[in-house]
């Protein structure tokens, strides 16, 4: 039988592979690194599901409302309806795979409050929810490796899609250990994670999600969407090589943000400006305020996260891992010293454009997880992305099976090409990546304007004059599409804030798409689908 090809072995990839295997369909799980190294293991806070175990009268429809509102109404309502409806069953099934969720007194799954949600809805396993879920799903996938239904190619990266006419018919992969290449035929589900590598050193995620796969697909004409929507997390610390997330729980437990005024006083700007929610305002609001107060004439230095007044029992029982982490990376004890924090890129809401069933603009190609633009609209709620990756992986696998009920003959994989036979083999140079990142951040920061975006576009023109390798050219093109999408959205909505268009404009209630047509980046607008009266989003 011809195997479905899955690129990426994080939550979305594992979920797709398991869904296929449970239906008896074989898959090839290809990833640059083993699943244990995927970004999904970093998720700490938890996964959302309206299980209502805390007796607050929560329901899927409230989860639906919160998700759409959080995403500033750019998410596909039918897709979100399916997501929230299946969430309780997904979290229960994870529990049955042995995920050690925190439990209530009567042994049910405990839920914690998370930003942007009115009810307690986030299931968690201490401070390592992603790692716990990954370990359980890796174990489940392993059972199908035993029976041959899942076959893994670790240490292999996608170089490009194989396209015939207007159909994706396979992939070209490179073994990063041996440098040999193989063309493999089959339908493809992309699960390659966020585009971190477009912003090296500036994201909270893994450095191994280089963004090269997304850049290759974009250059091959696959339609992308929502590329202007980057989520900045307000409390990250700079550690060597990246930004390290300080969980929202730090503020939830009483951490306060302040900046020093030139007259020496501490200014608790969030508490002063937002007396009701204070430090716990949504991520985009806090990030923007931090940006503005730093630029004020009467302040100096960075914003500080002050946790020095937290009680002993908070450090002992709820934030102990975080304290150790901060200590080991900064040498400072947050219980004694306020910590400098800065906004860091935490999530890519945009990515490969998919329909409700995770089909892309190219037949035979599907996408799920953080690489896909689905479920989160203009801003993602904490706890919804692991859910989206697991559910999306299942839906994509189901769509593939319904599109191709018949499976062809399996071909042996032959690594018959050498590195130098495909110019995309050459990896990007570090200095180019740093330069690209600097230029892009100028236009894609927390606060944007037409002027800043145009300046960044000019910066790209300059950068393009250097001799670039094919991989570098692809990445630059993807970066350009991000800037053009941000320029196109002449309003402020969700994570996208334009100083020159600070209001939300109802006439722009649509998704910005970007696609290379005839060699040019072409922008489009995609109307948000209307919610069906009887949502039908069944998996099988």
């Amino acid at each position: 039988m011809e195997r479905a090809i899955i690129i990426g072995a994080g939550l979305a990839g594992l979920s797709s592979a398991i869904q296929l295997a449970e239906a008896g369909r074989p898959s090839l799980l290809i990833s640059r690194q083993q699943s244990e190294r995927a970004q999904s293991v970093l998720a700490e806070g938890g996964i959302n599901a309206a299980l209502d175990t805390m007796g607050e009268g929560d329901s899927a429809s409230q989860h639906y409302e919160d998700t759409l509102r959080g995403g500033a109404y750019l998410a596909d309502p039918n897709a979100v309806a399916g997501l929230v409806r299946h969430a309780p069953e997904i979290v229960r099934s994870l529990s049955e795979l042995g995920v050690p969720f925190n439990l209530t007194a009567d042994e049910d799954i405990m839920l914690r409050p998370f930003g942007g949600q009115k009810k307690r809805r986030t299931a968690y396993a201490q401070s390592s929810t992603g790692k716990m879920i990954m370990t359980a799903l890796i174990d489940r996938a392993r059972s199908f490796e035993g029976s041959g239904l899942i076959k893994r190619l670790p240490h292999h990266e996608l170089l490009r899609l194989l396209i015939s006419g207007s159909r994706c018919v396979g992939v070209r992969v490179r073994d990063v250990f041996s440098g040999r290449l193989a063309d493999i035929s089959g339908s493809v589900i992309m699960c390659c994670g966020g585009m971190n590598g477009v912003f090296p050193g500036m994201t909270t995620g893994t450095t191994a999600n280089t963004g090269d796969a997304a850049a290759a697909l974009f250059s091959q004409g696959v339609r992308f969407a929502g590329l202007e929507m980057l989520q900045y997390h307000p409390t990250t610390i700079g550690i060597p090589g990246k930004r390290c997330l300080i969980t929202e729980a730090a503020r939830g437990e009483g951490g306060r943000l302040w900046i020093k005024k030139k007259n020496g006083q501490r200014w608790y700007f969030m508490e002063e400006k937002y007396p009701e929610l204070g430090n716990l305002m949504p991520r985009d609001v806090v990030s923007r305020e931090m940006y503005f107060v730093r630029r004020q004439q009467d302040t100096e230095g960075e914003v500080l996260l002050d946790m020095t007044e937290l009680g002993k029992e908070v450090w002992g029982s709820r934030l102990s891992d975080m304290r150790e982490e901060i200590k080991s990376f900064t040498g400072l004890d947050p219980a004694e010293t306020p910590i400098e924090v800065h906004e860091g890129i935490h999530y890519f809401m945009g990515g490969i454009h998919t329909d409700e069933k995770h089909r892309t603009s190219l037949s035979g190609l599907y996408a799920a997880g953080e690489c896909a633009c689905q479920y989160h609209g203009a801003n993602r709620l904490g706890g919804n992305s692991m859910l989206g990756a697991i559910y999306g992986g299942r839906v994509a696998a189901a769509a593939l099976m319904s599109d191709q009920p018949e499976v062809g003959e399996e071909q042996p994989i032959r690594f018959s090409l050498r590195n130098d036979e495909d110019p995309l083999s050459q990896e990007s140079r570090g200095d180019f990546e740093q330069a690209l990142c600097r230029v892009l951040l100028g236009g894609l920061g927390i606060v944007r304007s037409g002027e800043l975006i145009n300046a960044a576009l000019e910066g790209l023109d300059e950068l393009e004059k250097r001799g670039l390798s094919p991989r570098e050219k692809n990445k630059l093109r993807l970066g350009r599409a991000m800037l053009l999408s941000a320029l196109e959205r002449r309003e402020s909505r969700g994570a996208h804030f334009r100083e020159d268009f600070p209001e939300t404009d109802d006439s722009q209630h649509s998704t910005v798409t970007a696609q290379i047509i005839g060699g040019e980046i072409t922008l489009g607008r995609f109307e948000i689908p209307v919610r069906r009266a009887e949502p039908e989003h069944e998996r099988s």
Partner: protein
Amino acid sequence: MKEADRKSVRLEILRAADAESEQWLQHIDYPVSDDGENVASALKRINSGCFTDTDGRSVEPVGFECSCLQKKCGACAMVINGTPRLACDARLSEFVKSGTVRIEPLKKFPLVRDLIVDRGAVFERLSELRIWLEGQGRADSRIKDDVYDASRCLQCGCCLEVCPNFSTAVSFGGMSTAMAMSRIIPMVSGEQRKELYSTYRKAVFEGCGKSLACRSICPAGIDIERQLVRSNAAAVWKRRLRPAKKK
């Protein structure tokens, strides 16, 4: 803290273009610019900048694996001054006093190039030994904390590097295999229980010298001894232990 500023360390990196080439040591005088810098970030900086070694040759990119840069993925395990550990957890300020940092690939696994080794055998072993949960399991409150601790294993291979009994050629799986089993041992039932217990005895218990050389090396800080005692009790001595005390 500022002591590390403007200091430099000599990095001695064991290099090889591929598995067939002879390994050689490259010496680089590396200026430690930031006191949080670690071996992984230094290697990254070397790979994106223009560094020359002590013989005046420019340094070609050093092959090494990393991903999370915050001690959570196990990708960057290597041997640093003789000890297997995570490169992203090895701060250069530790070495400023002694002045040198010897950086070598793990030795128990086939070399790919420079600091990259193929740890595939660790994962294949888990599949061959059929380590997975058949049917359902549930980490209830009696076992939850132990399941959590065992699930934290990074499959990094540091414990295997120091283990006197592990090699990729023997059937003994070492502590990384033991942790994958310890996760599910408290949850298995029915037919699988017998099978898994017997696999545990063969692939872990009988091969392990219990010297616990691996205990203090685990970068995830898993309580290896407790996991072993629990799994031995269940699979070998057929007893169940009491749940862990809340930390």
